[in-house]
């Protein structure tokens, strides 16, 4: 009887471990493939990988992904500058007026935003920004990304604030602080969780492709420094180049995928460190 239980326990542990490894397999496969194909491509292109636009299709040379890097830089900067403060305020509002009817409505709205395919966000921005302004721009893409990151960051911020014990809130209110000041104190206490939310938003903004399809304009050869002109983005370049028949562009796509993977992994590792250090 006793032995059977031990056997069962071991079998279960084994099954769970195997399934766990299986779940991790795609991640390792991605990292492995992207590294094995991306690193040689970057080495072949040399430093120009980071400084030049792509070479013409079918050419012997690779060129680089400089316009995409520049575009992604602008996208990350503008979308976080727009999206994070707004999301922070939404998170504060949801925390502060938790039970109010408006907060419930906003929560339902942000949750549905979380579920909407991001390509629809791209189409929305196409209709309300790109068409009225008369053309694609990096800034329009950044607006789409800001909308995409909003629910993630807001939810994270709200949860971080919620995790602060109620006694601190009462202490702040008990000192005669207004509700606004009180929630800023709570945000200060939960600052690591809030920061984690910001990083999630940043990682989202860096990696999303679909919202950019109808917004930034895939201006792949332009090193125009203005974010109000059409531009490119790293994930967009990966998506479009990998589907071409040109060997040099496919190599560029793998190199760009490697850059993207490293960036996103760095953000997530930073996130783990931040979250682990949460202490009250």
């Amino acid at each position: 009887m006793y032995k059977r239980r031990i056997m069962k326990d071991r079998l279960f542990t084994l099954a769970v471990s195997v399934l766990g490894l299986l779940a991790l397999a795609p991640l390792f496969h991605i990292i492995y493939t992207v590294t094995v194909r991306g690193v040689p491509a970057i080495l072949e292109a040399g430093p120009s990988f980071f400084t030049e636009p792509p070479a013409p299709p079918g050419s012997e040379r690779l060129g680089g992904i400089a316009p995409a890097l520049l575009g992604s830089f602008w996208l990350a900067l503008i979308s976080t500058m727009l999206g994070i403060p707004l999301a922070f305020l939404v998170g504060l509002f949801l925390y502060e007026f938790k039970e109010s009817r408006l907060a419930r409505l906003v929560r339902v709205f942000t949750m549905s935003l979380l579920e909407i395919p991001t390509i629809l966000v791209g189409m929305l921005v196409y209709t309300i920004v790109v068409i009225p302004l008369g053309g694609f721009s990096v800034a329009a893409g950044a607006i789409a990304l800001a909308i995409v990151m909003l629910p993630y960051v807001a939810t994270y911020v709200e949860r971080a604030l919620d995790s602060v014990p109620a006694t601190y809130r009462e202490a702040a209110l008990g000192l005669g602080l207004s509700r606004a000041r009180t929630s800023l104190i709570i945000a200060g206490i939960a600052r690591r969780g809030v920061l984690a939310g910001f990083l999630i938003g940043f990682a989202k903004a860096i990696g999303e492709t679909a919202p950019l399809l109808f917004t930034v304009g895939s201006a792949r050869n332009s090193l125009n420094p203005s974010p109000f002109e059409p531009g490119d983005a790293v994930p967009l370049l990966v998506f479009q180049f990998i589907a071409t028949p040109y060997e040099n562009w496919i190599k560029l796509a793998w190199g760009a995928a490697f850059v993207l993977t490293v960036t996103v992994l760095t953000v997530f590792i930073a996130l783990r460190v931040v979250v682990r250090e949460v202490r009250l």
Partner: protein
Amino acid sequence: MEKAVTELKPPLEVQIRELRVKLEGREILKGVSLSAKPGAVTAVMGPSGSGKSTLLKTINRLIEYYPGVEVEGDVVVGGVSAFEMDPYLLRRYVAMVFQTPNPFPHLTIYDNVALGPRIHGLAKSKKELDEIVRWALEKAMLWDEVKDRLNDYPSKLSGGQQQRLSLARALALRPPVLLLDEPTANIDPVNTKKIEEAIIGLAREEGTTVLIVTHTPQQAARISDYIAVLYEGRLVEWGPTKEVVLRPRHEITRAYLKGEI
């Protein structure tokens, strides 16, 4: 409507009149009348769930942040109804210390104490603020232990020191009324003694009106001038400490003081 009360003149007597408080339909306080005098310590006692914390949190209107709250009756502070005052102003005069030590972990010792005076604009200069911080820490019997490390974070302090820091943070407002909700429940005897001395000092030297919720009859006997006993939302006994301890009028008080309920 809140009237334009902008200032109260200490000392402030607290008068609780026929106070009824419901939380989500459940009646917690069932008509309590009681007053607390300046310069005296009033101990509020009673078994768990008798409404002690609710009573304190109604005095500074923190209760209003609880879901489904209904308040009837009145709390009069220095002659003015608390419910006719701006609650943020009210809390400048009626400060509170809680059961769990709760100094803000992301602010330094100095900034914790300075927060209240800064928000309410009580100091005109850095020097004046320094003096308020020092005064509050001295009154909370913590100054000697932290004067050389005011820029440390509270996590470096012991639990008892953190509770005295919470007390100092409340005192920095120079509140004429001080509410304490079982401030020594989680604190060791040495720190408890310091906190008790601080409380007595405030009542005697500053004329502060002190209301303290406590579970230990010994503590009430040590520091209070008056004892009020709540039982199931009603005031069953209220009088000078000696009388209540030596000759409790009510059976419930007797049982409570003996530790039977």
